[in-house]
Each structure stands twice: as C-alpha cells, then as structure tokens.
C-alpha cells in the first residue's frame, strides 16, 4: 500500500441508492465502494490508473431521513445529442412537462462523514511516462488545492461532497467497538463482463468496511 491515500468526504445529505429500490429511492446504510471510487475519479483519474478502494471509515452515526423531490421519468434518448451535434441544433429536454415530471420519495442519509482509504494500480494503458509517484503527487496536489474534474457528490448530484486529505490519523468512528452486518451491498459494476453488477457481504467492524477487490474469490464464489 505504498501509494495509498486517505480522503475525508462529508456532506449534509447522501443517497447511496440501492439497485433494487431506485425508483422510490432507498439508500444503503453506508457509502458503497463504487461510489467511493467515483468520488476519487472525480478528483483525479487517467486511463493509466485504476482506483482500488481498501477501506471505508464511517465516522458519524447512520441517520435516515425522508425527502420528496420532483424528478423526471425519462432520459434524453441517445440519438438526440448525436443529431444535435451533427446538425448544430439546440438540444432540449423538457423537465417541466407534466408527463415527464413526477414526484418521488427518497429515504436518504443525513450528516454523513467518511474517510476513504484507497490506492491505485497502473493499467495496461500506462505509458513510459506514467509512474505511481507522479499520479500520487497529482492527486494530493489537486485535493489540497480543492480541484476536481467534476464536483464529487454523495450519491446524487444534488448532494455535493466536501473533501480534504487526511494527513495524520483517521478520526475515531462513532461505531468503534461495534460490529454490524449490512447485508449484501453493491461492490462495483464489472464493465468487462457486459456491465454485470457484483455484490459482497458488507460487514462494518469498528466503523470500518473493507470491501474485497472486485476480482477476489469472495465476490466470484
């Protein structure tokens, strides 16, 4: 774990939507590993590296809340942006259309605070100019400067994540001394296998979840 980083992320709201309950959204109890990966990638990612999430620390108690939001029922169909680009036409998506808009309830989390421990590995896209030290430096520099490619969010774009580098010890979790079964949780999407979702049995020990790497026997077996 020579190239490990520790990133603290927090925010007022978070919704780590469960795949089975994503219409009337219900959040997982804690951040999923793929969401953690998404936050890291929002700050720094290149085809040459792949992030691997080692640990997720849950610092604050898990509090659920209910929110009703106006959402839409459709997505922009794929051909629309293609033709818009080709014909130089404006692309529009009518959000306030009564047939498109709908109210949906969400059971989400309040006042979350996590520390993500992760490292990255070089992929086969890495060229001779890529090395671990370089990307680690870039990441750390970007975090300290508050830079990102797109705003990291806590599960939904409406819930932006604040972030900072943890340089010393990880703060003590609310759940120290407790073990909690969180059931099966989404680990990640296997993009090499036709976007197959992978699940793992999540267990929180002392407020820490250690997801298995996506190719381990625990996931495949």
């Amino acid at each position, binding site marked *: 774990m020579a190239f490990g980083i520790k990133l603290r992320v927090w925010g007022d709201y978070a919704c780590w939507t469960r795949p*089975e*309950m994503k219409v*009337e959204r219900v959040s997982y109890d804690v951040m999923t590993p793929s969401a953690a990966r998404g936050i890291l990638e929002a700050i720094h990612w290149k085809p040459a590296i792949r992030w691997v999430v080692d640990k997720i620390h849950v610092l604050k108690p898990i*509090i*659920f809340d209910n929110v009703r939001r106006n959402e839409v029922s*459709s997505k922009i169909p794929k051909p629309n942006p293609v033709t818009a680009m080709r014909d130089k036409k404006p692309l529009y998506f009518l959000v306030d259309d009564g047939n498109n808009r709908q109210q949906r309830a969400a059971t989400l989390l309040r006042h979350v605070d996590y520390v993500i421990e992760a490292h990255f590995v070089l992929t086969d896209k890495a060229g001779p100019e890529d090395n671990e030290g370089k990307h680690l430096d870039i990441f750390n520099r970007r975090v300290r400067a508050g830079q990102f490619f797109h705003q990291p969010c806590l599960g939904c774009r409406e819930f932006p994540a604040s972030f900072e580098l943890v340089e010393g010890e990880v703060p003590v979790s609310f759940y120290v001394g407790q073990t909690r079964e969180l059931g099966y949780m989404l680990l990640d999407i296997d993009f090499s296998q036709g*976007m197959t*979702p992978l*699940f793992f049995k999540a267990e929180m020990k002392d407020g820490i979840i250690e997801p298995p790497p996506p190719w381990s026997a625990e996931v495949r077996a």
Partner: protein
Amino acid sequence: MILQALHGYYERMIADPDSGMPPYGTSIENISFALILDTEGNLRGVEDLRETDGKKRFPRKMAVPAAVTRTSGVKANFLWDKAAYVLGADKNETNTNVPRFAAFKELLHEIGADLADPGFVAIRGFMESWEPDEAETIINAYSPWEEVAGANLVFRLDGVRGFIHDRPPLQNVWRTHCAKLDEALKVQCLITGEHDVPLARVHTPIKGVVGGQTSGGYIVSFNASAFVSYGRDKADVGETSAFAYTTALNALLTRGSRQKITIGDMTIVFWAERSNPVEDFLADLIDPAPVDALPQIQIDYQTTLKIHDLLQAIRSGKRAVDIVPDLDESVRFYLLALAPNASRLAIRFWETNTVGGLLQKVGIHFQQLEIVRQFDSDPEFPPLWRLLRQTAPLGKSENIPPVLAGGIAKAMLTGSPYPQSLLPTVLGRIRAEHQVTYFRAALIKAFLIRNKQWEVPVSFDPARTDRPYLLGRLFAVLEKAQEEAVPGTNATIKDRYLGSVSANPGQVFHMLLKNAANHTAKLRKEPEKKGLAFSYDKMIQDIIDAFDDFPATMSSEEQGLFMIGYYHQRKDFFTKKNKETQS
C-alpha cells in the same frame, strides 16, 4: 436490508408448518367455490367455500399453484381459475370465453400429459365432457350462477379430503413445470448473495397498503427509462428470493393481520427475527384501548389491562420482562413503513432494533407525553391516531398532514426528534379553535422535551418562574375572573385573545389586565363572591411580581410553554373545586 429481512421472515415462517405461508410455486388467492367431481369427471356438486364475516361473505384465502400475471390476452392458471376459464362461461355472454376455456384445457394437457393421478384424470374428464353453453343451467342446480360466474374455482374429488391441487403428484408436476420455465438470465442475487440463480422478471405486487391501488404496488420496479442504470431494467433478485420477500410482505399486510398498523397515509408492518410475543401486542401498544372502556368481552378486557400494566411499566423505565415473562429482549425487531405513490410503494422509514430497545423507545414516548389529564375520561396513554387528529382541521383523519403523521410515528418508534412542523401545527390549531386540549398539551410537552430539551412538568408547578409559563398561568386566572364576574358570556377572553396573547403578550396583556380590574371590581360588589375577588387579585399580583415586563413577542417554543402554563393553571382551578365539593 429490507428485502433481506423480509426474506428471513419468510424462511422463519415456512419452517413452521402451521403458519400458512405458501411454499414456492404457489400463491395465496381468493377462492369462492369448489367443483365436486367423481372419478369420471362428472360434476357432483358445487361447494361454497366462502367465509361469513357479519353479513358479508368473503372468499377464502388459499394456496394454489402460482397465478400467472394477466394484463391482457389469455393465460390460464393450473388447476384453478375464474369461471370464464374453468367453465368457459361467465356473466357476459361473449365469445371471448371460448379461447379461455381452450387455454385452461391446453395447460392441463401440457403439464400433465401422462399423469395417472385420479384427481387429475377427473379434471381432464370433466373438461372433455363439459358444455360451456349449458354452464348456467347446470350450475344453477347447485349454487346461484351469478355468484359462481364471477369467482375463482378449484376442484375437489368426491368423497376425498382436500382439494385436487393439493395432491402431491400434481404439486410435483407443477414444480417441475416451474423449473422448466426458468430459462431466464442467471445473476447473483442481491438478497441471498447466491450466484447463477434465475433472475426474477416481474415481482409479485404488494397488496394491502392503505391508499394503494387494489391491484397492488411494487417495491421493486423499473417502469420508466429514467430508472434504468447501466442498461439493467431489472433488479438482480433471484426468482425464489423475489417470491419469498413478496409473499412474506403480503402475508404481513393481509386483512386482519396483527402485525400491521395504519397511521395517516402510511402502513407500518413489523416482525421479529425469531418468534416473539411483541409481534402480537405491538399494535395494541401503539393504539392502546382505554382501560375504562366497556368490558364487553372478558378476554379483551384482560388483554387491555395487561397492555395497560405493560405501558405503565415501560413508561416508568421498568423492563417489559417483569410483565411479560416470556419476552426475549435481545431478539432483533424490524419496522417497515410503506406509503403508496402511484403504482409504486415508497419506504417511509425502516428501523431495526432489539425488542427491548423498541419497547424502551415507546416507553420514552409515553413518558414525554405524560401530562395531567383534563377529564377523567381522557386516555392515560393517548393512541397515536387521536393525537394526530388534534393536528388536523375539523379533527378529521383525512386532514392530517401526511408528513406529520409519518414523522410522529417515526419519532415514537425510533426515538428520533418529532417533526419540526409539529409545534407550529398544534399552535395553529389552538389559535383556530381556541382550545388547549389534553392531547394538544401533551404533544407540546413532548415536543419541548424531546426537540428542545426543555423541562416541562407533568402537572401544575406553582414554583416555576419562567415568563412564558407564568404568562400562561396569568391568562388562565384572567379568564377565570371573567367567567366568575360575567357568567355565560358568548365570547370569553379565551375565545378572543388566546391566539394573539401568546404571540404578542406586550400588546394584549395591558388591555386584559385593565378589563380584569373591572371584573374583580364587579365581583367585589357581590357579597358571596367577595372572597374570590380578593384571591384573584392576589394571584394576579403574585404572578406579575415574578417578572419585570411583558415581552413584545414570543417564539413558538415560548408560546408552547405558555399553553402548558395555561393548561396547568386551568386544570388546577378545577381540581381545587373538586376537593372543595368533596369536603
């Protein structure tokens, strides 16, 4: 976690043969009649299976080979179905029943082509010789055709116990048939974690949620393009797991279930990880019947008393085991609150706790609500629905703000703070109706204690010195003085000023005090009330001496405390009077 816990409940119940939980491959359906056949397949009678409840007759719930999902088109069920399929006729005499009758016959041939079971042979014989055109006349000889024509029918073999669809050989062929259909995508199930299990295409709708569509709603659904991520328009739930969780939830939601409560627009179901007596009486804890209700049925009265004892124990912080010895407090307990949203179900809240922890939360709720009762008929443990009605215009259940209902129920069962809107809503009702009732005072008290950590006493506290409480007491004294001086007025100062006096005491009290001087002056002129005038003057003086000036405005929390002071002082007047009459 929700689906996992429901799956666990199903497995717990299926292990108990008396639970009536249907095994995989079956579903619980409403069946009204059984056709009695002899071994050749001749109709020998029609048995009415319906159960009477009062004057109405309800079809019997029965486990039958799982129903197909019929939206449009013709699809038959195995060994049972509507009259249109089984008899080829129903009330509307159209040709649409011909293909239905044929489909039912064809499915029998397809599944049991070479089956020699006498029950199956009888049904096949019946189908071969049956004339749909004469259905009405033949059935009328046994049972009224209008009733049979619209109902679901099963078969029974004459002189043999049980129904034909329950015969083991037929259950076997049905299971083989179900397994054969599983050519679905193989996935990792997110409920059990098993790999390469057949994917559930459609999840059985959940019925019995108040306000939902009668055909049921879905927890898991992907009915529009916006809900699809990574091209997956189905949740990765195995067929058997999907069956287990929907069946378990439907069982919890059935009519007359003891594990279901309806509050406002939500339906709460609850269950324990292992069998636990709390499952039987939690609904009574949340909506306790008053003890002095007419003891019509002795058993019910006994239960009510027992619940009352239990409530008193948990309110004072004692453990429930002292009252219910066979209670295991360490068992995990689940609460799931559902609310309908179009054809889908939204999860209002989901709470996991131990039995002991849950009872403790309920106890704290009642402890914080506890306030001196206005009338002896007021319930000692106010049921949730009566509390909620106090927040609604005209006291009607349909006017209860849904978010408030959910929030209060959640606060009671999980120990979370009461909704922020509770206090303004209750104050608004008091302003509109000029009534500080027992329930409203209790709600304000609980809110101030839990959300604001204020100290609010259960009953009248003359030593208390904070201004809002004193102002509330003062207003009660002024009102009483007016009542004595001018009995039978149409509108007392309470009716005119209860709203404004709590919000702007600085403006209103000076005028009220001037009026009160007139009232006591009038009392002094009546010889028998002279003493009263003196005591009111003294009370007003004592209260006013305790603070410096009248505040221009008061926050809603202070207004809440004002109402408590008013309620306590007023209650105190009447308590004293009772003592005088007794002595």
